[in-house]
């Protein structure tokens, strides 16, 4: 997919004017946070579970090699295959090779952000394999030639009318505005694809080291058909998804559903453990796990390490006022919102992702809802520091901080600057005591007034008061 993160500001400006998008985003703001709060209130130990999950994740990251190798040996024991892929390209090639070995024409796909990350669909198509997205949201987006704007609700930027038109144009059936009818249409279209597919590709929410299992959680059941019906099942996932035991997995499942959709449990929690065994009624003949690194092992050794705790619940973006204003596509790559502002610069390079960690007021809402307590503002600040050190910070901002810093480090001069600015602002404010057009600060005054100072600076008045007090 094309990276438009360097155009974040322009993307955001367009998004703010997009009436349909703004309507759709209104549903995010009121829907997810409310549901999460309700679910949380029903589970008194929620915060305690978050602490446990944070600690467990830290332990896993410290011992990642051990757990991944344990996972691998179990998969092999179960008759499956594991492929270690350092880069996106390695992963794409590995997946294509498996498809080609099976002479695959079509592959069905369950929802997977890692396959977005490695740009799998375009690559498969370019090499004669047709990917079919089976998650309803992903299916709609595939018909429209779009990418997800949200990591758990990929088509959240669309409204019913959009879906209705897209289906009408692609399914050649009478136009309908009834969600049930639209759902039925998608179901009919997808049924045949499920049966015809040569390979099924899913992601994984977690990998379980003790059993060699992968688990997907979905609300549509499409993932089950994707991984059970075709003869070959490929799990494409990233290395930090591994957890030690099934019991550990359930801790994360409890947090994931509540943090993501506000459900107590996701509808389908489907484990797959290797290929079909003798006596199994269903399941693939071949089972592959493609483990993608793509910069993650570098993160272990960096200040971004804590980001590897992320379980992709989307609570951070659901609660982010910036995401809520501009939507996911503005961020210009796969992962939007606060978690994306930390991950994207790591994966596409800070030069291209520079604007993202700056697109936050550091309000801290994301950190406050994160089920694994990732200090997202701190990690965004890490990138800002990195940008400053690499001279990627825009010149004007750098210059501004330089001038301001010069004064801030010299109290007497700073005092004079404050008094001067105070007088200037009061003069500009005049009798109205507010300014509606301020040179050099049009960003502020284009949308709001600037209240003028109500008198001299506090420091001026305080020192006058001290003098008067002393002389009297």
């Amino acid at each position, binding site marked *: 997919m094309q990276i438009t993160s360097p155009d974040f500001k322009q993307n*955001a400006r367009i998004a703010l004017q997009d009436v349909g998008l703004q309507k759709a985003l209104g549903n995010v703001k009121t829907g997810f946070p409310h549901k999460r709060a309700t679910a949380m209130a029903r589970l008194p130990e929620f915060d305690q579970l978050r602490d446990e999950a944070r600690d467990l994740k830290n332990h896993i990251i410290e011992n990642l090699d051990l757990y991944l190798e344990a996972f691998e040996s179990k998969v092999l024991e179960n008759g499956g295959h594991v492929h270690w892929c350092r880069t996106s390209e390695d992963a794409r090639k590995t997946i294509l090779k498996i498809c080609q070995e099976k002479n695959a024409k079509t592959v069905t796909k369950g929802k997977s952000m890692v396959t977005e990350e490695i740009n799998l669909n375009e690559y498969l198509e370019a090499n004669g394999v047709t990917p079919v997205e089976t998650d309803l949201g992903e299916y709609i987006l595939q018909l429209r030639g779009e990418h997800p704007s949200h990591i758990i609700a990929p088509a959240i930027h669309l409204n019913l009318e959009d879906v209705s038109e897209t289906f009408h144009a692609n399914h050649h059936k009478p136009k309908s505005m009834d969600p049930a009818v639209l759902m039925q249409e998608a179901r009919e279209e997808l049924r045949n694809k499920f049966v015809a597919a040569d390979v099924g590709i899913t992601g994984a929410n977690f990998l379980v080291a003790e059993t060699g299992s992968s688990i997907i959680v979905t609300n549509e059941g499409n993932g089950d058909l994707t991984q059970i019906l075709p003869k070959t099942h490929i799990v494409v996932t990233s290395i930090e998804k591994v957890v030690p035991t099934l019991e550990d997995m359930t801790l994360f499942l409890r947090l994931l559903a509540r943090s993501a959709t506000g459900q107590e449990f996701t509808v389908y929690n489907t484990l797959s453990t290797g290929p079909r065994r003798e006596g199994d009624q269903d399941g693939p003949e071949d089972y592959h796990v493609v483990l993608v690194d793509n910069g993650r092992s570098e993160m272990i050794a960096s200040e971004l390490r804590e980001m590897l705790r992320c379980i992709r619940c989307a609570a951070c973006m659901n609660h982010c006022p910036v995401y809520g204003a501009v939507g996911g596509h503005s961020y210009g790559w796969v992962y939007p919102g606060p978690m994306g502002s930390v991950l994207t610069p790591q994966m596409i390079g800070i030069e291209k992702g520079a604007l993202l960690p700056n697109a936050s007021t550091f309000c801290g809402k994301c950190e406050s809802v994160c089920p694994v307590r990732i200090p997202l503002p701190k990690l965004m600040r890490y990138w800002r520091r990195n940008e400053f050190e690499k001279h990627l910070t825009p010149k004007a901002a750098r210059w501004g901080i330089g001038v301001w810093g010069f004064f801030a480090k010299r109290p007497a001069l700073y005092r004079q600057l404050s008094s001067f600015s105070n007088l200037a602002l009061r003069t500009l404010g005049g009798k109205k005591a507010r300014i509606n057009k301020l040179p050099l600060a049009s960003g502020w005054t284009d949308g709001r007034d600037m*209240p003028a100072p109500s008198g001299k600076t506090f420091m001026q008045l305080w020192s006058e008061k001290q003098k008067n007090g002393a002389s009297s």
Partner: protein
Amino acid sequence: MNTNKNQPVVGLFITCLADLYRPEVGFATVKLLEQSGCRVDVPTQQTCCGQPAFNTGDYSTTADIARQTIAAFDGFEYVVAPSGSCIGMLHHYPELFEDNDPWKARAEDLKKRAFEITSFLVDVLKIDDFKVDSNAPAFNGSVTYHDSCSGLRELGIKAQPRQLLAKVDGVELKEMEESETCCGFGGTFCVKYPDISNRMVGNKTQNIVDAGAKTLLGGDLGCLLNMAGKLQREGHAVEVRHVVEILAGMTDQPALGEAQSSVKAG
């Protein structure tokens, strides 16, 4: 009133915005502290907390300013500011220094002594019989309270201002929807991403107006300037004040961005 030698000595950290825009906030804070038995001084070696540099990623400038601030408040039992955001920044100072740097310990020490004003009154001085100065002009009307992000999430300030406001006769608190959602100020964010900031403050003013209160209160001038400016641009009559103005009984002066005459008439 307590005037003995044991009275706590407080250094007022005035903050750039209160210094520049609203000296009354500084005087109200001093009044509240003195009324509660503290001796207040204002060290002249203070400037800004350094947050603009910190959030721009300029750690070297931030550390310089941090050392200056730490030194300026040496010897004060407490450091109090009318801002959760600036005190929150003081609490970040230890992150700026390596473990073996002597400034690290001094930063940790400052952190322990630094409080936002409403939190200081409630959590440190534990004032449970708070009273507004009886000679002050009475404030009558409804207020709504914006929970500024840094104070709320970095310092846990939520109940403290409300607890104090509940002791003020004539004040009726009408909570707004989403009082904990960011107003879009965000320091340099509001000039770096003005379109997004403007949308966020627009969402905020909608909630403020819907609350139907006469006055918007908060604990951070950055947010208050942002919201006051938007309310005024949109033509709403809601007046905006820092919470200390009400608590100190200093509401005879014009609200933020209000002309002198309009208040005299009112």
